[in-house]
């Protein structure tokens, strides 16, 4: 039993990201999409929270590229996936929780 969480807001603007992380169980996955990908950049407060998170964290590559974020800027421990990876993550967990 595990959940895929998605976060689509910048952690610098809204609390969705930190709220999601504090509600994710061990074994859950968190996928950052749309403006949520700004939370994946190394050296940020958000990346620090990710390093101590119980859940595995993923980020959508297309949304990173669109925002000019190079893969070497991504914090350690975050996996970059495409839309096909998004579909796989949704399939692998029993439910998807979108933190809107």
């Amino acid at each position: 039993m595990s959940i895929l969480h998605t976060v689509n807001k910048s952690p610098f603007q809204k609390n969705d990201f930190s709220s999601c992380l504090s509600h994710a169980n061990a074994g859950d996955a968190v996928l950052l999409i749309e403006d949520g990908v700004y939370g994946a950049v190394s050296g940020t407060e958000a990346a620090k929270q990710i390093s101590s998170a119980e859940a595995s964290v993923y980020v959508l590559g297309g949304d990173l590229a669109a925002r000019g974020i190079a893969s070497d800027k991504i914090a350690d421990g975050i996996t970059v996936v495409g839309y096909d990876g998004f579909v796989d993550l949704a399939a692998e967990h029993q439910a998807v929780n979108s933190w809107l």
Partner: protein
Amino acid sequence: MSEDMEEGGTVKKFMYMNRKAPYGTIYALEALEVVLIGAAFDQDVSLAFIDDGVFQLTKDQNTDDIGIKNFSPAFRALGDYDVTKLYVEKESLAERGLTQDDLMDLVWEDEDDDWAEKPSIIMVSRDEMKKVLGDQDVIMSF
């Protein structure tokens, strides 16, 4: 998956996530409309009130001056629709300077217990909310 067969259909655990305040945007009202329609489908329904979602349940909402319908009384009807599990996160209340006394008194009548009135609001800690969320089959977000 909690797919017990009941009356020939599948019963899933449906969670309605409420994380937004009422009136500033329509999400809270349109979420409640889904809950009321969804009640007819005999699923195992619960609602979560997290972050600004707790503002939906406060007492004494009065929308006279803003020209938008006050829909908070509709939460009182949920019990009649057999929607009886409203999980409210204690930390979200505390962070906003609220206690349970600031919320509406929501109840449902238990037909298996001589129609005794029982509270619909279930106060849970963030850790307990994590477990509740982790136990769902379908999570509706608005």
